[in-house]
């Protein structure tokens, strides 16, 4: 009786989950080794991170604050994955949503109960507008959305930078490179964590339900899995692509709006802590699971928060970006390995 490795079309969910745990662990080990080589004690740093994150309610509140945009950008990327596309422009749509929301918040006056929904809608519109060109190019002429969505990130970053340091800059106080404070604020839910967190959770559950349990969601998934087949079955694939991509942009835009209205209260260059790019990792770690988005966003929030804590130790947030890249690399490799199973040679008649 002999055994052999056989590749299966899809990995076992349990194996895929284990792969993620191993990938994250490996990335932390490699990161720790690099830290040790550069002369710092990784265990002491880890201890400090754990203490300041979980030792006080402040730490946990920070986690919730960082997780809010990450849930949404992760969701934005995950939605497009369902139809087999990549939206790696969540960063740009985040900026566009923040810009649109800030425009309403800065220049329109009204009661807060009216203005916050208005800013929310502006965020939706901003995010959607930002993904419109890649969407149309993808749906009508088949231009790969990877590069088009990504290129617009740089444009959005520059646009926000332009407004925050140019026409909308705060002329009063000495705050450089940001607009005046926006009066309309998301009310707080728990400590510093604002209601945006609840909105992010609700939107994620809603999107997951629609994608998993409705006919529309089914059609989206089929369009992603096999476009020709979907077309043959009478599914309007093009319309599904447009809807899904616009939805994805809208979700990322909401993340930007919540960051402006809930956390930063100003528009400033670099308002996104790479949330859009980290959203890709959140989506990859979560695979297609809605609960997975929460777990992955929490993890990324933890890592991001660790970077902020460790700034006092001379580490930079860019080191954290490198670490997340390592997580992504190991996950990608592990995902491929998860396709393999040991099977008995006499049963494998492939």
């Amino acid at each position, binding site marked *: 009786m002999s055994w052999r490795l056989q*590749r299966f079309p899809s990995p076992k969910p349990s194996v895929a989950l284990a792969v993620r745990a191993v990938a994250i662990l490996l990335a932390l080990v490699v990161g720790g080794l690099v830290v040790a080589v550069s002369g710092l004690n990784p265990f002491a740093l880890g201890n400090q991170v754990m203490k300041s994150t979980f030792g006080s309610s402040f730490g946990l509140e920070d986690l919730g604050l960082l997780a809010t945009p990450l849930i949404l950008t992760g969701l934005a990327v995950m939605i497009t994955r369902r139809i087999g596309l*990549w939206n*790696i422009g969540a960063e740009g749509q985040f900026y566009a949503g923040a810009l649109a929301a800030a425009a309403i918040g800065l220049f329109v006056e009204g009661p807060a109960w009216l203005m916050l929904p208005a800013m929310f809608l502006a965020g939706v519109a901003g995010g959607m507008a930002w993904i419109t*060109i890649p969407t149309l*190019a993808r749906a009508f*002429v*088949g*231009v*790969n959305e*990877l*590069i*088009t969505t*990504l*290129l*617009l*990130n*740089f*444009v959005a970053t*520059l*646009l926000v*930078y*332009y407004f925050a*340091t*140019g026409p909308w800059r705060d002329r009063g106080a000495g705050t450089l490179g940001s607009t005046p404070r926006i009066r309309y604020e998301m009310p707080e839910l728990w400590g510093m964590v604002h209601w945006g967190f609840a909105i992010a959770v609700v939107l994620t559950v809603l999107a997951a339900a629609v994608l998993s349990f409705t006919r529309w969601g089914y059609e989206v998934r089929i369009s992603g899995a096999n476009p020709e087949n979907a077309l043959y079955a009478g599914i309007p694939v093009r319309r599904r692509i447009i809807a899904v991509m616009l939805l994805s942009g809208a979700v990322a835009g909401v993340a930007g709006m919540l960051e402006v209205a809930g956390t930063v209260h100003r528009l400033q260059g670099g308002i996104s802590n790479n949330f859009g*790019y980290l959203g*890709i990792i959140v989506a*990859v770690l979560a695979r297609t699971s809605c609960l997975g988005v929460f777990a992955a966003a929490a993890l990324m929030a933890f890592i991001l928060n660790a970077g902020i804590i460790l700034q006092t130790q001379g*580490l*930079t947030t*860019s*080191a*954290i*970006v*490198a*670490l*997340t*890249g*390592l997580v*992504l*690399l190991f*996950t*990608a*490799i592990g*995902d*491929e*390995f998860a396709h393999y199973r040991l099977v008995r040679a006499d049963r494998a008649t*492939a």
Partner: protein
Amino acid sequence: MDIITGLLTTAVLAGGVLALAALGEVICQRVGVVNLGVEGLMALGAVTAIAVTISVPNPSVGFAAALLVGLCFGMVFAMATVLFRANQVLCGLALTLMGTGLAATVGRAFSGMPAKATFQPVIVPYLSDIPILGPAFFSQNILVYLTFIILPVAIHYLMFKTRHGLNMRAVGENPGAADAAGIPVLAMRFWYVSLGAALAAGAGAYLTLAFVPSWSDGIVAGRGWIAVALVIFARYRPMNVVMAALLFGLITALGYVGQARNWPVAPALLGMLPYLGTLCFIIVPVIVLRRMRQLPAAPAALGLPYFRDVR
């Protein structure tokens, strides 16, 4: 007159960065692998060149060191995508994050410092006396001649005039058939992907040794992504890549000249030109070609891992 010369000089200099990175990506994509890590590789190359020239003030040494670092990271990427057959998009994004993050971390010590050694212009006798074109094309540094003349000709010859090049393209078009014909598919992919990555890192070194002679965080600024777009625009041909790079360089140069001449447009808005231009160049040709029913032909097996054992 000298505004045109200035524009062309900057265009050649700026286009060279893109050309070098895009040539690497052409090699990589022709054997069937999409490397989306160019941005990260360029950042690594840029910081390596600065760091090395601080202790050894010789630009060639800095450039070679960047190539070596690129080769090493390229081998990691190739191991993941070619040997382990992991998803190429994910590995590329991972490489971009790793590269930019690592480069920024390492580069903090050199931030804002001018490069200790740079490539000096080499003036080609007689040709540099040609009005307008001479100064722009024939009194540039050695890297410009390398990326605009030597490398593209060499790669074109290798890819389209030799048997080895035919094999190379076969690996990108139909790895199964190539394998059956006895071509070592995995070895071919592994080494050309690594080589392409080395060139991408070289483009980063070009950036800090010949174009903007200092390191600062975010110095690559999406040039890696523009290079990837350029490969598609150039339809995977090395000679086209050079022409396209010149065109893209011209757009970048327009932004610089605008800033230098105080055009009444904010610098941040002028800075958008390369990205918006690239966006146009990637979408418009597809629309036109669809009208003519002539879609650009990417290598048929582009982005697909090769499994000999799974059929």
